[in-house]
C-alpha cells in the first residue's frame, strides 16, 4: 500500500496513523483482500471547499488499480471505519447519469443553469454571488489592480502611436462580465487617465462585454452606464469566443477575464505506474438524501431523475412555485456527489483531448514530472484559450485573473477542486498545462502573483508573443 499525504496541513496529518490502523483492521477482519491492500493507493486530502462533491471516503477503481481518497477535514475517529466499509462496498445512491468524463457531466448543466438564474439564487441566499467567493469579494474589482491594468493598456496605445501602428478603433474584450463592475471601473479609469494625459484615446475605445448568460449581461449594464455608448453586449460562449467574434480576428488589443477559467468544464487525468487514465465520473444523490428529498418535495424516489431533468430544462419554476423549486435545487445541489472510475487511455479509442493538445504533447509536458500524478486537464480553459488568442492583435495581450496551478508538482500537495460555490463549480486551472499548450500556439504565458489583496490565491496570467 502507498499512502500519499496530499496537503501540508499539520493538524490533518495527525489523522494518518488512524487511517493506517483502520486499514490494517479491515484486512485483519477480512473486509479487505490482502492483494487489494497491497495494490492500494490511499490519498489523504484536505478539501478546502466546505461544499464539494466528496464523501468522507471514496474509492476510485480501474481495471488493475484501486485508489482510496480520504477527506481529512471530514474524518473523525468514529466515522472512518464505517465510511471505509461503505466506500469499498460501492456507492449507494440514485445516479443522475452514466459514467463519463467530468466535462460532460450533468454537474455542468447545473452550473450553467445557476448562471442563467443568478438573480434567483441571489434573492434566495440574500447575498451577491461574489460574497460566496473566498474572501467575499472578487479580485477583479480591486481599485489599484484596475489602475495598473489601465496604465499598462494606455502605455501600449502610446507605444503603438509612437510607432505609427495605432488602429482607428481600440477593441477590448471582457469574457465573463460578472456584475460589470470591473469593466465599468476599467473604462472610467481609462477615461480619467486619457483626459489627464491629453491623448484622446477614450472615444476610440470599443468595449465588448461577453457572457453566455443574457441575464448576467443585463445585470452588468448599470455598471457601465456612463460609457454605454462605447459598449457592446454579446452573448458569447467562453469556450469559443471566436465563434461570435471571428470578424475581429487579429483585431482585439486587450482581452481580460476574472475567475472565468475556474468555472469552465473540466476533467481529470491520472498517471499511474506509467499509464494514463481518464477519471470518469457519475453524479449521484446519496440514498438518505434522495429519500429525504423525495418525501419533502413529494415525488416518488425513482422519479428523482425526471424531476432533475425538468429543473435543468425549465428552471426553478418548473413546478409552478419558484420558491419551492429554488429550495429543492439548493438542497439537491448540496447533496450531489461524484462517483469515480479510472479508464485507461488505450481503452478509449475515441479519446478526444481538448483542442491544442494531443497525447504526445501531453506526455511531453508530463515528462518533467516523475511518478504518479492526478491532475486537472482544464479542458474548458484550454479550449477557451486556444479559441481566444486568434482574436488578439499582433500587439494585443490576454490577461486572466484566476486560481492557477503553475507547477504540476503542486498537485501532490493540495486539493484543487472541484468545489461548489453557491450553485456553481470551481476548479483550479492547470496553468502548467496551459503554458505548454500556449507555447505551440505562439504565446509565452507568465503568471504573476496577485499583489493587491493579502492572502489572495489569485494569480494573473498574461501573454507575450513567442518569438
Amino acid at each position, binding site marked *: 500500500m502507498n499512502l500519499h499525504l496530499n496537503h501540508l496541513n499539520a493538524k490533518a496529518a495527525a489523522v494518518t496513523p488512524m487511517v493506517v490502523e483502520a486499514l490494517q483492521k479491515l484486512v485483519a477482519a477480512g473486509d479487505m483482500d490482502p492483494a487489494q491492500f497491497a495494490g492500494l493507493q490511499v490519498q489523504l486530502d484536505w478539501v478546502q471547499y466546505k461544499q464539494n462533491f466528496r464523501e468522507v471516503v471514496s474509492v476510485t477503481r480501474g481495471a488493475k488499480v484501486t485508489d482510496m481518497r480520504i477527506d481529512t477535514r471530514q474524518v473523525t475517529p468514529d466515522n472512518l471505519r464505517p465510511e471505509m466499509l461503505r466506500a469499498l462496498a460501492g456507492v449507494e445512491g440514485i445516479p443522475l447519469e452514466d459514467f463519463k468524463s467530468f466535462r460532460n457531466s450533468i454537474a455542468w448543466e447545473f452550473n450553467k443553469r445557476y448562471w442563467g438564474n443568478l438573480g434567483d439564487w441571489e434573492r434566495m441566499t440574500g447575498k451577491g454571488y461574489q460574497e460566496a467567493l473566498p474572501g467575499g469579494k472578487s479580485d477583479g474589482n480591486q481599485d489599484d489592480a484596475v489602475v495598473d491594468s489601465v496604465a499598462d493598456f494606455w502605455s501600449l496605445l502610446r507605444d503603438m502611436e509612437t510607432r505609427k501602428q495605432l488602429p482607428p478603433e481600440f477593441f477590448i474584450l471582457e469574457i465573463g462580465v460578472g456584475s460589470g463592475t470591473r469593466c465599468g471601473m476599467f473604462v472610467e479609469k481609462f477615461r480619467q487617465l486619457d483626459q489627464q494625459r491629453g491623448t484622446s484615446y477614450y472615444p476610440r475605445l470599443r468595449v465588448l462585454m461577453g457572457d453566455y448568460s443574457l441575464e448576467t449581461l443585463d445585470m452588468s449594464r448599470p455598471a457601465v452606464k456612463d460609457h454605454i455608448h462605447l459598449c457592446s453586449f454579446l452573448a458569447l460562449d467562453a469556450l469559443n469566443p471566436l465563434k461570435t467574434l471571428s470578424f475581429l480576428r*487579429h483585431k482585439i488589443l486587450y482581452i481580460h477575464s476574472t475567475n472565468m477559467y475556474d468555472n469552465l468544464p473540466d476533467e481529470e487525468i491520472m498517471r499511474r505506474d506509467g499509464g494514463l487514465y481518464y477519471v470518469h465520473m457519475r453524479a449521484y444523490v446519496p440514498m438518505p438524501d434522495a429519500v429525504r428529498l423525495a418525501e419533502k418535495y413529494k415525488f416518488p424516489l425513482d422519479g428523482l431523475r425526471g424531476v432533475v431533468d425538468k429543473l435543468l430544462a425549465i428552471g426553478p419554476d418548473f413546478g409552478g412555485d419558484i420558491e419551492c423549486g429554488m429550495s429543492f435545487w439548493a438542497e439537491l445541489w448540496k447533496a450531489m456527489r461524484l462517483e469515480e472510475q479510472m479508464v485507461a487511455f488505450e481503452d478509449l479509442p475515441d479519446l478526444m483531448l481538448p483542442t491544442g493538445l494531443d497525447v504526445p504533447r501531453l506526455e511531453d509536458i508530463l515528462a518533467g514530472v516523475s511518478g504518479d500524478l492526478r491532475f486537472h486537464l482544464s479542458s474548458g480553459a484550454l479550449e477557451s484559450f486556444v479559441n481566444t*488568442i486568434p482574436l488578439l*492583435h*499582433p500587439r494585443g495581450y490576454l490577461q486572466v485573473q484566476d486560481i492557477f496551478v503553475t507547477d504540476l508538482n503542486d498537485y501532490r500537495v493540495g486539493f484543487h477542486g472541484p468545489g461548489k460555490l453557491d450553485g456553481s463549480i470551481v476548479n483550479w486551472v492547470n496553468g502548467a498545462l496551459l503554458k505548454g499548450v500556449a507555447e505551440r500556439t*505562439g504565446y509565452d504565458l507568465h503568471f504573476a502573483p496577485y499583489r493587491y489583496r493579502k492572502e489572495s490565491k489569485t494569480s494573473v496570467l498574461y501573454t507575450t508573443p513567442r*518569438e
Partner: protein
Amino acid sequence: MSIAKTQIRQMKLPILPTSMVGSFAMPGWLERLKTDYFARRISHHDLDEIYDAAAKAAIKDQEVAGLDIITDGEPRRDNVVDYFLERIPGIQIDRSSKKFYYDFYDSSVHSKLPTASLGLVRDFQFLKAFTDHETKICITGPHCLTKRLRNQFYPSDEALAMDLARVMNLELKALAKAGAGLIQIDEPYYSGFPEDVSWGIKALNTLVDGVDTKIGLHVCYGNRYGKPSWEGSYRYLFPAVLDAHIQQLTLEFARRGGEDLDLFREFKPSFDLGVGVIDVKNDEIETADMVAEHIRRALAVMPAERIAVLPDCGCFHLARDVAFAKLKAMVEGTKMVRRELGQ
C-alpha cells in the same frame, strides 16, 4: 545590375499562374519526428529520408490541386530563418536554444562572413527530379536574416545585411545556373521594421545582382504560429520598392483586404503583382467565388498578363487537408476568372 525581363527564360505558364508562396502544411507527424530528432531518438539519415518523402508528397499534392508552379513544400525548414543561417559559415548557433524545432536558434555573427556554398541547389534539383511543372525556390532575404542575428562584428545592421547578400548571391547564381526559373526572396520583416526598407532594398539588389532568372519578392505581415506579427499598410514599401531589381512583388490581400492594391495604381511599378487570395491564418476554406473576387479586384489595377495568384503566405501552419482544400479553391477561382477573360 538588374536583369531585363527579355533576358530571362520565359516560363511556360497560363495567364494568372497559380503557386504556393513556398511552404505546404507541416503535418503533426513530421513535427513529432523533428522533435524526435532533436531529442536524439532518430538519426539525421532517417530524418533526411523523412524529409524527402514529405517533399515528394507536397509536390504531388500541389500537382493534384492543380497549381502551375510547384515548390518542394519546404518540409526541411524549421522556420523561415534557421535553415539559411545554419548553412552560412561563420554564423555561430547555440543549438541548446531551441525548445521546439520551430523556435529560432540564438544565432550570432562575430567576424566577417566567408564565402561558401549553401547547398540549396540540391533542394532545387530534388524538386526538378519529381515534377515536370515549372518550379519556384524561395530564399529568405538578408534583411530578415539580419533581424534574427546578434550582430557582434559589423558596424550596423545594414552592413551585416549587405555582406549576407554578398555571400548568398553566389548561391542564387548557382541556382539560376542549375535552371531555377523563379527565385522568390522572402522579406517578412520589412513590415515590422518599415524604417529599414530603404537599405533593405539595397541589400536585396546586392543579393540578386547578376542572377539570371526571374526574381520575385514576397512581403507579408509575418506568419509565426499562423498569426500576424504586425499590422499596418503596405504604403511604407513605396516608393523605395520601385528600385528593387525584381520582376514580381507578392503581397497578402486575402486576410487584410484589397485596399493596398491601389498602391499599384498610384505608383505604376514595372514589376508584376503576386496577389494573395487565400488567408493562411484562418482554417475556413475560401470558396472559388471568393478567390475570383480577389483576382477581379487585382485586375482593376494590373492587367491579367502581369498577375500571379498565390496564398497570402506559406501554408506551414495549416492542417494538410485544409491547405489542400484552400489550394484547390484557389485554382478553381483562378479558372473562373480565366474563363471570364476568354482563356
